[in-house]
């Protein structure tokens, strides 16, 4: 019986396990080693905002893992991987042997080396444990200072406001969302948030956090200090790869790092795959190897690995960078190569309606987009999807460029008339129709 070892119980790991069970012709042994009980990081902001109970965040339970015939070693970490002898050593000294293995250990929150960032009342918001601490600290009337104005910070903004807390966001860069949208879009979001009572301070370098009579005092290189009941550090993430040292698995020294993988998501060791935040895989649009630390990439990586582990030969086309966040009922999204000096760029701004579009072309091909607009505007939501379809399918929009230059908001006729739907219909990640996410019948029967 083939033995699969899955290291990490996040999105990539669980999608891999489900796909193994969907695809395999013969039963196999699946072992999951996960430092935490599996949960969805995507939904932690909704737990913070109390729109869901804590129990809602879990993506697997000991019972569901047992039903999937997974031997789960939860609360355990792998400390050493030896691809040559097909063995992993755990932190309790146990050894797990495998025929193939998936590394999906994800990322952790990274804090800048500033005095006081490890003190009381200063939290990251990345793991469930960290979320619990923030949930306990953010109460009606409390003053929250968030350090960092990137995507992660913005995913919990609504939750903090809905708890009745006041919010100040400080960012070292001269503007908010520096790695998700361009400056023009950022200025719309800044105006929108300021009008809704959020205090923004950009270009602010944090120098220290000190205790001051039960509160946190944040000092900056310039400008006055801030007082806070709770400080949330949303200052970036780092991949969890240190434990791989000495394994011989090739990791990149380029910015972003990550385990270098081929189009089957195989690392430099043939029996070892990597997926999600730790994998440096193919960019769908450029073909370059990059780390895309986003949920959709983890999901697709995990499924492709699962299919390959189950004996199929599935190549991965590559992943598309995409982010969407809703802040105080304003939708903000970006796709693909949205920051590209070599691209032909069309933009349109309707400041009175807080709407912005940016389309980036190479020849007739749309290679990136930025979208912003009120969430109540249904066309924003629909256009988000159609722009993804245009970018990912790479249809030829040459005949529509003049029209889109005049009106970057008028995406739908271009999407329909270029027969994008016919391009998209045959597309699947695994070369077959996807299954419903429930337990596949094969496991139930065996």
């Amino acid at each position, binding site marked *: 019986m083939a033995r699969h070892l899955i290291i990490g119980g996040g*999105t990539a790991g669980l999608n891999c396990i489900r796909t193994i069970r969907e695809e395999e012709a013969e039963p196999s042994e699946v072992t999951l080693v996960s430092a935490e009980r599996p949960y*969805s*990081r*995507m*939904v932690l*902001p*909704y737990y913070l905002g109390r*729109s*869901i109970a804590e129990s*809602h965040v879990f*993506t697997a339970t000991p019972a569901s893992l047992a039903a999937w015939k997974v031997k789960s070693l939860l609360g355990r970490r792998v400390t050493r991987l030896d691809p040559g002898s097909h063995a992993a050593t755990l932190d309790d000294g146990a050894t797990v042997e495998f025929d193939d293995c998936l590394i999906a250990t994800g990322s952790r929150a990274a804090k800048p080396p500033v005095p006081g960032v490890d003190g009381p009342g200063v939290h990251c918001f990345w793991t469930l444990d960290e979320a619990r601490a923030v949930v306990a600290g953010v109460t009606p009337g409390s003053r929250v200072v968030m350090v960092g104005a990137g995507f992660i910070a913005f995913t919990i903004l609504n939750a903090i406001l809905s708890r009745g807390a006041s919010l100040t966001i400080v960012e070292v860069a001269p503007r908010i969302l520096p790695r998700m949208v361009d400056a023009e879009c950022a200025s719309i979001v800044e105006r929108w948030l300021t009008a809704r009572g959020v205090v923004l301070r950009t270009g602010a370098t944090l120098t220290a956090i000190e205790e001051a009579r039960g509160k946190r005092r944040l000092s900056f290189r310039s400008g006055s200090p801030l007082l806070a009941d709770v400080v949330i550090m949303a200052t970036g993430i780092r991949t969890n790869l240190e434990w791989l040292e000495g394994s011989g698995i090739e990791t990149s020294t380029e910015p972003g790092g990550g385990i270098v993988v081929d189009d089957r998501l195989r690392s430099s060791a043939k029996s070892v795959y990597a997926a999600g935040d730790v994998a440096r895989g193919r960019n769908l649009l450029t073909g370059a190897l990059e780390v895309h630390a986003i*949920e*959709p990439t983890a*999901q*697709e990586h995990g499924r492709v690995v699962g299919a390959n582990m189950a004996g199929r030969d599935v190549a991965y086309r590559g992943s598309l960078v995409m982010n*969407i966040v*809703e802040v105080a009922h304003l*939708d903000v*999204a970006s*796709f693909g190569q949205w920051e590209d000096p070599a691209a032909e760029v069309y933009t349109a701004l309707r400041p009175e309606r807080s709407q912005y579009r940016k389309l980036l072309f190479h020849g007739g091909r749309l290679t990136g987009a930025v979208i912003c607009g009120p*969430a109540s505007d*249904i066309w924003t*939501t*629909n*256009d*988000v*999807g*159609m722009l*993804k*379809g245009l970018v*990912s*399918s790479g249809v030829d929009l040459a*005949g*529509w460029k*003049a*029209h889109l230059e*005049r009106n970057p908001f008028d995406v*739908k*006729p271009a*999407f*329909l*008339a*270029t*027969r*994008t*739907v*016919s391009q*998209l*219909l*045959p*597309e*699947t*990640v695994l070369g*077959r*129709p*996807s*299954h*419903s*996410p*429930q337990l596949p019948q094969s496991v139930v029967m065996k």
Partner: protein
Amino acid sequence: MKILALHPDKCTGCLRCELACSYMQTGSYQPSKSVIRVSPLEGYTSYAPYTCTQCMEGWCMTACPVGAIRITAAGAKDVMDDTCVGCKLCTIACPYGTMFYDADTQKAYKCNLCGGAPACADACPTQAITFEDVESADWIGDFAAERTAYVLRRDGARAGVA
């Protein structure tokens, strides 16, 4: 499996499908909440209905981080309201632009074929929307290409290109 087949050349733009759909999906006659959308093409004289194809990949379903989108007995991908947290990942994952978000309920929603008896097909007076056992297809593409040719020619003329 039976799906919605769309015949844009028969669409008169009466929007009855949107009314019927919104009533089935939300309990009120509110076309802005319809998950089938009639679009005007060619200077507002040609119309075409457009909705979820129930595609093979099910991009919305595979993207959902909590498994809230499932395949129903009717073969449709549908959002389980009690599981959806409203994170909108499905709206960015669906490359067809046919996922919707209800700001009132803070949940995603989509065409679920009304459990096997689609209200839009029932309401359409000209059979521009039919419920049939056929393969999913690009029902609108050729029609849209033909009918928007005028828009593009006009753009070209304004830009000084014949």
